């Protein structure tokens, strides 16, 4: 029996007994490089702070060896860093999924109202005296889901047109944003300060309390994400092609969209709406891997990298004042979005961009 080698260019086939798996070589390389960069950033981020800790000591702490810097690195800096990594990864994945479903590089959880919904719900809860981190994440997720559902329902008209989706999303975002501002004025001065910082997306004072629910949810999502990585390829085609290929389009889109919304809401719950990570990470990852679809793993790595680097800069650049990480990501992300708009010259983008 001759085995015909139908192998797409740039892929390697991994075989383990009877199952086989297509591996995109360039994606693998990018993933490895991103992981290495991420590791370097992790060490750098743990070294740099009010006091400098030698990289050697950081590595010792990470490996669980006794070290004099245990307190600074392990207790003060590590929880914040872990939160940043998880938040970045969650936003990256979420952006990849939502951009795939919308088939539009401009769609992201920020644009379609998810983060604003989570933000409005959380600030409202804060104003009414709920400040416990045991409750707030659920409030955020509820708010994000509700906003996304609202946008979905309002934009639905014999199918989901990407442009309509984006426009309705922006409208709902504006309305939710003004509600959020209302809640900020209702609270007292301290709540206002806390809410304002939270709303720009900050990792300051975030630790395992915030990271734990996010980590749990991300772990629970892993099997679904594996499904998503497969389903994603079908959804990326236009409607007719996808249907002809036997993709159950509506079901897949709903599933991918829901996954994206859940991870974005969870990330928002942990660190506030860190702007534009969900928009940037998948696009950069895709340009690096040069895959036809948006790579999930690389998007997650890229998201984590963006958030940790941005947080490092936000912490140190104007030291001793600490800026919220969201300020930084928005300063980079917004011009990038504008550049995307300006440079979208292909005829296909006429309907979507």
């Amino acid at each position: 029996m001759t085995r015909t080698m139908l192998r797409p260019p740039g892929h390697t086939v991994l075989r383990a007994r009877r199952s086989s798996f297509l591996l995109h070589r360039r994606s693998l390389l990018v993933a490895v490089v991103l992981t290495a960069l991420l590791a370097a950033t992790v060490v750098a981020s743990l070294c740099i702070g009010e006091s400098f800790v030698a990289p050697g000591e950081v590595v010792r702490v990470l490996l669980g060896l006794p070290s004099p810097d245990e307190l600074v690195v392990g207790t003060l800096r590590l929880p914040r860093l872990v939160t940043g990594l998880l938040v970045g990864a969650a936003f990256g994945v979420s952006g990849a999924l939502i951009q795939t479903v919308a088939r539009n590089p401009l769609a992201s959880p920020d644009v379609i109202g998810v983060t604003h919904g989570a933000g409005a719900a959380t600030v409202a809860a804060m104003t009414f005296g709920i400040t416990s981190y045991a409750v707030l994440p659920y409030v955020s997720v509820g708010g994000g889901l509700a906003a996304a559902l609202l946008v979905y329902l309002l934009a639905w008209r014999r199918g989901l047109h990407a442009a309509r989706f984006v426009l309705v999303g922006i409208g709902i975002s504006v309305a939710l944003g003004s509600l959020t501002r209302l809640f900020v004025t209702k609270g007292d001065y301290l709540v206002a300060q806390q809410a304002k910082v939270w709303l720009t997306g900050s990792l300051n004072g975030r630790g395992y309390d915030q990271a734990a629910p996010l980590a749990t949810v991300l772990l629970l999502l892993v099997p679904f994400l594996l499904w998503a990585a497969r389903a994603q390829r079908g959804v990326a085609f236009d409607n007719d092609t996808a249907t002809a290929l036997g993709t159950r389009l509506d079901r897949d889109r709903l599933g991918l969209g829901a996954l994206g919304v859940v991870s974005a809401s969870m990330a928002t719950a942990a660190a506030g709406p860190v702007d534009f990570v969900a928009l940037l990470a998948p696009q950069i990852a895709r340009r690096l891997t040069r895959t036809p679809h948006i790579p999930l793993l690389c998007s997650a790595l890229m998201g984590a990298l963006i958030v940790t680097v941005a947080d490092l800069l936000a912490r140190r650049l104007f030291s001793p004042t600490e800026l919220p990480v969201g300020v930084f990501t928005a300063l980079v992300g917004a011009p990038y979005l504008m550049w995307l708009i300006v440079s979208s010259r292909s005829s296909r983008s006429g309907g979507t961009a």
Partner: protein
Amino acid sequence: MAVTLLLLLLAVVLSLAVGSRTMAPSAVWDALLHGGTSDDAQVVRALRVPRTVVGVLVGVALGVAGTVLQGITRNPIAEPGILGISQGASLGVVCAIAFFGVHTLNGYVWYAFGGAAVAAVCIYVVAGSGRGGASPVKLALAGAAMNAFLASVVAGILTTDARALDEFRFWDVGSIAGRDASIVGQTWPFLVAGLLLVLAMARGLDALALGEDIARGLGRNVALLRATGALGATVLTGVAVAAAGPIAFTGLAVPHIARALVGPGHRWLLPMAAVLGPVMLLLADVLGRVVVRPAEVPVAVMTALAGVPFLVVLVRRRKVVAA
């Protein structure tokens, strides 16, 4: 038109009469004409009259600015708030508070204009370039990006300056409550200047509605028209933002209501928008005073909530999306 003017009168009366202390229109009338020192008279003259006048001023500015922006971009969702022009004005005000020690409205105004102008230029360049010109989605996204960018700069400044936050957060919510009469005295010249600019190019808007080429064929200088219109709209937005903070969606909804009433000709459209703007703003403000008594909902929240259905209906019409 006459009916709309009556509506405006009604809105003004409501704005004067309704509040945490509701009084009969006759009492309001008394207070206005004869003065007096009763509590009612004090409330009307010291609080409600300035508030109402500011509301009218801001409403006119936003209504006309929205109409002109929609006219020059030929885009049904153009609006100072969505395009980020208001956020630009906000940034100007924040800088004034944080860096230049400006704490009076007279000072704010110039910074608000500056910020609004810079944001307007950037948005137009971004949305207008690339293939297909300024389509609704591109405009909205460019506006959203601009909003996020400016908001993050504002947030950055405010995080490092807690005192400025305390001053800014009340202004930021967009309200016409607690503004005193001096604001009107300081901003009306700008309102007039903005309206004159708009008036100067108003006739060209009808030509522009037919398309750039036809407008050019009719002997209009399209670039000049657009520049004048944009400048006028920016000045008007600056007035509104300086006086009341960012108020979204009024500039979006008003032109559409006006168009439904008097058709697309700008000769009637602009005056109609100028009357409907204050009507919408004052009614939203009155509603905001009533819904959560004895507290108040700022007018910007009310207009945003009232404006969203508008946007949704607009977007669901096929025309907008296809563009």
